[in-house]
């Protein structure tokens, strides 16, 4: 069992997302320590991309901040950050980025470096099931979980996707791009039972979740809850002073699902 799957064994998992380098790599480092300390079970680290087509305005803006800051954030600098983080951080970490970031670095070079620096998983929202053969065999070779996504429109595709999934299945709660939503109307319970019928694998729900009530509701069905935009909003608001605010938020979300 991979480190990522194991992270779901001690109860409902809280999985926060942040964009590396927003507002700076130094603050990213501090936020990761604080989130682990506040109860995060897995951390999703976004490698910024110039044109993040699956993101809503909040995370788009974080990508722009990271790529246009005083210090230009690059894939290599993020690898160095993770090397440093791994000296202290015990929980699994996964990269979330776009296919071109991995492809242009060289898929094998990128994924083998992930292994070397202690990254456990990779989430590529623009790689659907049909394209995963380009990356998945390499991920398997290095013991990295390539996380599969299912969406409210997946229907008959869920079985095929779940069968081949590793680590956990990322259940996209709503149509559209990332971002906080006041209401989630998809039947998450149904989506998760279709996944579980195909394979016994943890399911984490993401997209649109921002407050403890929503997280609690999602955790009734899911094994974990993923939150990105709500945290990125806090970072956008407080910048270099955001560490205690993010920490407090993560603690409240973890408590809500425990």
């Amino acid at each position, binding site marked *: 069992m991979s480190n990522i799957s194991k992270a779901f064994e001690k109860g409902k998992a809280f999985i926060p997302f942040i964009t590396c380098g927003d507002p700076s790599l130094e603050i990213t480092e501090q936020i990761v320590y604080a989130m682990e300390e506040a109860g995060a079970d897995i951390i999703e680290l976004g490698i910024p991309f110039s044109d993040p087509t699956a993101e809503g305005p909040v995370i788009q803006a974080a990508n722009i901040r990271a790529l246009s800051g005083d210090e230009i954030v690059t894939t290599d600098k993020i690898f160095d950050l993770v090397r440093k983080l791994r000296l202290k951080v015990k929980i699994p970490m996964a990269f979330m980025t776009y296919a071109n970031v991995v492809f242009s670095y060289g898929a094998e070079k990128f994924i083998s470096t992930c292994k070397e620096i202690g990254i456990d998983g990779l989430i590529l929202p623009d790689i659907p099931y049909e394209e995963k053969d380009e990356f998945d065999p390499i991920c398997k070779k290095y013991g990295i979980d390539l996380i599969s996504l299912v969406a409210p429109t997946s229907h008959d595709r869920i079985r095929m996707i779940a069968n081949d999934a590793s680590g956990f299945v990322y259940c996209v709660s709503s149509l*559209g791009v990332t971002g906080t939503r006041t209401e989630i109307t998809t039947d998450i319970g149904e989506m998760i039972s279709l996944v579980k019928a195909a394979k016994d694998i943890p399911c984490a729900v993401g997209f649109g979740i921002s407050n403890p009530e929503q997280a609690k509701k999602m955790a009734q069905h899911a094994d974990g809850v993923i939150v990105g935009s709500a945290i990125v909003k806090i970072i956008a608001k407080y910048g270099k002073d955001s560490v205690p605010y993010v920490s407090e938020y993560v603690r409240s979300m973890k408590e809500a699902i425990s």
Partner: protein
Amino acid sequence: MSKGRFGVHGGQYIPETLMNAMSELEDAYFKYKDDPDFNKELTDMLNEYAGRPSRLYYAQRMTEDLGGAKIYLKREDLNHTGSHKINNVIGQMLLAKRMGKTRVIAETGAGQHGVATATVAAMMGMECEIYMGREDTIRQALNVYRMKLLGAKVHPVDSGTATLKDAVSETFREWTSRIEDTHYVLGSVMGPYPFPQIVRDFQSVISREIKAQIMEREGRLPDAVLACVGGGSNAMGAFYHFIEDKNVRLIGCEAAGRGIDTFETAATINTGRLGIFHGMKSYFCQDEYGQIAPVYSISAGLDYPGIGPEHAYLHDIGRAEYVAVTDDEAVEAFEYLSRIEGIIPAIESAHAVAHAMKVAKTMSKDKIMVINISGRGDKDCAAIARYRGEDINE
């Protein structure tokens, strides 16, 4: 390897949320592609509404002036809405209607595809929303007004560089949030499978007509076919039926902007490298870490950091040549064709005219060249005047 490949290029690099919509589109396309009723309706609309077939015009004064190859102009600028874009729009809208969609969305750069989509939506009574980079809404204000006049809602896009690539990203984002009743009328031979194939097939009417027209006029095939390339739909349409005719040179003219040795360029084949973006594997202008480059061209329609996957493949196998044409050269060609033939080409098409001016001279008088005039240039007059330092109101 997944579906829809041209060599290594193409594929379906899109979020899971859109995958079933892609299968639905693929199924519908294969169901209707060779359906006699569908094709009759398509041909009727192309002829009666869009004004096809477009003329193949012998540019006698230009031919004599340059003193080389005999030059023909394929007049896609004479189509309804003023460009080749309507060929693909009519095809996709008929498909969307059969799929039960009631709303269409589209990206636009220069505004030509947006205008064509808004036009056919008005004619078919469909709801229409167009995404256009803020920068382009300023460069092409007249087209924004035309789209609104036709009943479409125009959304200026502020993300990224606020140009065509951002309009494409934003239209994909919108599509993932509303798929059930909505079809994305993608405007070029790009994006995920099956779009590059669908758009190519609907645009291939251009080369089908050129072939028949030149055979009738000259009794033989041309020696070269030239077209401008952004995403590459007019070029793919003009090339397609000549791909098997190996003696016909196919020349795609990319926008070099201020030059391919500067950062202000949009010449993808000449300056880009292999990557994955907007649903496809192809060549893209990008930095060493795969961040998509902010490209530049005077032409809003060619101002795109990628190229359709079939063009990338034609380049790889050496079947087509891709050359770079600067802003300066395109503006000169814009003025040249206006003066010598009384035809004002779109600034996009002027890129092909500019290269033709270089190449025609090197060819003997018994050679024949066809330039695809993909659109008309009325929309560009104010911008070109400004480029020449003349301030006029649109």
